[in-house]
């Protein structure tokens, strides 16, 4: 029989080392995970609160809003309204996991398995993280950002810097590239492509095309509008990027600040799209590792029960009429779907064979899961892998609330044969950032006239912007743009629903 990792609740640094080694063995050998090197740091509750207020990062530039969040978290923590997370993990290489010193030995094991292996594997392998984040560079970048902001404060004054950062923060949710940009080709590649195109034209040449009548030639003015938009890269949904590149009167350091905020927003973008999967992966991994350690006799029955207690709390999903209900719990949903995938792969029923012909009965649980973890995000993950059995288990139903409907809120679909696909599609959509964030883009600038910046908000399902907030954000935007800004809310038929026009506030002191 193998040696116990620890007895009771106490731990020291040797225990942590043994625990990590044991978890690593299971994670790499049994589960075949592929992780960044780990760095585990033990911190106090106060340090945890610190980390909370700077979005979990170990170093960050200074700004009053972080102080506000800290004060807020601290107040609710002191009153006992809020427990602290057991851990925080950072998508960096080495992958840093923070453990709270108050945790018992069992909890530390759970947290190490969860963060240092579960999250870590997800960060390293999921396509979104690979595409958008640079795990090796993030800490250096944050360090640079912190110093840069500090230098700017010394040079241009705290108030000036704060004003710029306030404005940038307000636009942060619209400072993200949603699609990877096209790479500029070098000359050689361009030449090659031109050659291929010519070749293709030669192959498919048909003189008949010449006889097809051409459309009406574009007028000169349309052409010039199109040309102008193209020069400015419009339409552009990344507002911060647009301002950084095109705002006429920003100082270079202000552009750099916008860039910093934009980069950080981009760094967090994958996390908001993979909440269910990320937590599901980590929960699934810690569950597998803990169970294995218990089977090996390295954890006592008592400690295992303690683990099961916390695990059950984590994956608890209250029902909709429960006072504790606050939406789907990403831990519960993610874990349930992954366990369900395990079931489908190993013990499929007829229904599963029909719904998941690709994976049913494939028997390679980890292979399938690793593929899922690497290639999906929440929306596609739920859209593909939420099984009828799970929908029945959660007793899911879909409500459609149309304010125009006098009769009330309609139950549109429930967990039955007719409803499975619709429920699943709706739930997937709820996790699609494309539907969650307002779709706002810069469409035009009146360069020849008063330089007014024109934005469009494409309203989906009649859901318009909150007026007070929209005005405030636009004020910030106008301050950065330094000319008038107009935001037009249009619905799918291009009908104008509402129009905001905001003028910049006068700048109190000349910006250096």
């Amino acid at each position, binding site marked *: 029989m193998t040696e116990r990792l620890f007895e009771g609740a106490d731990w020291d640094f040797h225990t942590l080392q043994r625990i990590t080694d044991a978890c690593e063995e299971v994670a790499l050998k049994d589960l075949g995970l592929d992780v960044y090197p780990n760095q585990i740091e033990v911190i106090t509750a106060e340090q945890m609160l610190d980390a909370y207020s700077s979005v979990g990062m170990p170093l960050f530039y200074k700004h009053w809003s972080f102080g506000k969040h800290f004060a807020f978290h601290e107040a609710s923590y002191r009153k006992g309204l809020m427990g602290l997370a057991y851990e925080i993990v950072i998508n960096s290489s080495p992958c840093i996991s923070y453990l709270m010193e108050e945790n018992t030995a069992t909890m530390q094991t759970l947290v190490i398995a969860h963060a240092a292996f579960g999250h870590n594997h997800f960060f390293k392998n999921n396509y979104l993280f690979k595409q958008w984040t640079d795990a090796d560079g993030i800490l250096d970048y944050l360090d640079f950002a912190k110093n840069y902001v500090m230098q700017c404060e010394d040079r241009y004054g705290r108030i000036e810097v704060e004003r710029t950062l306030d404005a940038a923060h307000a636009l942060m949710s619209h400072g993200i590239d949603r699609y990877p940009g096209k790479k500029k080709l070098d000359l050689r590649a361009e030449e090659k492509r031109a050659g291929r195109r010519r070749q293709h034209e030669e192959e498919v040449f048909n003189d008949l095309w010449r006889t097809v009548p051409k459309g009406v030639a574009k007028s000169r003015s349309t052409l010039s509008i199109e040309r102008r938009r193209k020069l400015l890269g419009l339409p552009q949904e990344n507002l911060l990027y647009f301002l950084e590149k095109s705002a006429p009167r920003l100082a270079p350091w202000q552009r750099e600040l916008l860039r910093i905020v934009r980069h950080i927003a981009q760094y967090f973008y994958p996390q908001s799209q993979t909440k269910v999967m990320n937590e599901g992966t980590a929960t699934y991994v810690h569950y597998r590792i803990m169970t294995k350690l218990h089977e090996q006799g390295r954890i006592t029955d008592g400690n295992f029960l303690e683990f099961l207690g916390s695990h059950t709390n984590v994956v608890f999903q209250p029902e909709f009429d429960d006072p504790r209900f606050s939406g789907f719990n990403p831990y519960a949903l993610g874990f349930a779907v992954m366990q369900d995938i395990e079931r489908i792969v190993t013990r499929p029923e007829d229904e599963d064979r029909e719904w998941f012909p690709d994976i049913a009965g494939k028997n390679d649980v980890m292979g399938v899961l690793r593929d899922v973890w690497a290639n999906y995000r929440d929306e596609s993950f739920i859209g593909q892998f939420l099984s009828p059995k799970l929908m029945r288990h959660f007793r899911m139903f879909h409500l459609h609330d149309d304010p125009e409907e006098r009769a009330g809120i309609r*139950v549109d679909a429930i967990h039955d044969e007719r409803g499975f696909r619709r429920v699943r599609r709706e739930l997937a959509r709820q996790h699609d950032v494309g539907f969650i964030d307002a779709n706002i883009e810069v469409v035009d600038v009146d360069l020849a006239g008063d330089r007014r910046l024109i934005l469009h908000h494409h309203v989906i399902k009649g859901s318009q912007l909150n007026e007070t907030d929209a005005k405030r954000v636009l004020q910030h935007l106008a301050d950065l743009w330094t000319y008038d800004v107009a935001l037009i809310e249009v619905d799918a038929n291009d009908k104008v629903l509402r129009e905001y026009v905001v003028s910049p506030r006068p700048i109190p002191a000349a910006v250096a």
Partner: protein
Amino acid sequence: MPIHIIDRRLNPGGKSLENRQRFLRRAKSLVQGAVKKTSQERDIKDVLEGGEVTIPLDGMHEPRFRREGGTRDMVLPGNKKFVEGDYLQRSGQGSAKDSGPGEGDSEDAFRFVLSRDEFVDLFLDDLELPDLAKRKIAQTESEGIQRAGYTMSGSPANISVSRTVKLALARRIALKRPRKDEIEELEAAIAACTDEDERTELLAELERLKAKSKRIPFIDPLDIRYRRFETVPKPVAQAVMFCLMDVSGSMSEHMKDLAKRFYMLLYVFLKRRYKHVEIVFIRHTDRAEEVDEQTFFYGPASGGTLVSSALQAMHEIVRERFNPSDWNIYAAQASDGDNSYSDGELTGLLLTEKILPVCQFFAYLEVGEAGGSAFDLSDSSLWTLYERLRNSGAPLSMRKVSERSEIFPVFHDLFQRRETAQEKTAP
């Protein structure tokens, strides 16, 4: 794969302190308002322990583009009885308002905890003793030491090594003192040299270099520099605050409470703001005694009223311990205004002759019964007396207080930062 386990618990805490200060600075006016509001409701002692304040979130709002309204679709768990096509009644009136949790502007007020220091700082902000530091500067404990460049002489402990070495180096370069490697090079050349003539030449050269390096020392006493310090006088104003309180039988519990609150504020204010303020507590009935702060605030006492006894006691203490030419003297008196009829003249005399001439500032606080508006009552004997004195030009400030909530505004009024404290008229 190596795993690093790091203990960060010993790292210095308060990493977010600076962010917090920024936040407080930004929210200063809001927090200050909240602090004052809180302090009216609570016991002074609790108030000064710091604690939770609530500020409206409005000024600290971080706006974002948020969407609201429109048709909504949601998938929920836990269906029990619904089938497709059922209609649920909307609960209540708001169809857009009762949206999912976490949405909407639920936090319109923002609660957080201030530390004791932060709280008191904000609480006492913009208060100051009037006309402080007007008179003599005390000699003791008032000299500071300050760096003042370099000097050629001094004690060995003050040698500035970097400056000395720099000068020595400059001198050696200027005088072309041969470097060690030059001599070594030459010696090597001599060892390798075969030609006799050249060898003698080289030897002579070596001799010359060695002599030169002996003549020009590595460090010359001329190079040595000492750090110079200067003593600078730091002006320290000496001040003493007399707290006079009536604790006689005519003072009801409520009045005593008001008076004590006032002094508690004064006490905290002085303790915190001025290192060099001495505080003397005098309480009186028909007799006056100097007491320590504990007795002053918490000790029980009862009896008749002779205001002059307190003034007499103050006068004696001033004569014994606080020479008016060396000390700034302040006094604050709290009373219900009652005084034994026969005592009025003596009180007036003491005040005008003995006390006011030596005082920089004399504040009188008249406490009244709860509910009774201070303005309706006919003026008390003491008030009438003091008012007469003030009208004849005595440096006297007077206020009336009958509610707890008035304490802070009145206190603030008496001690706010201004050019001349006496100019304002009493309400």
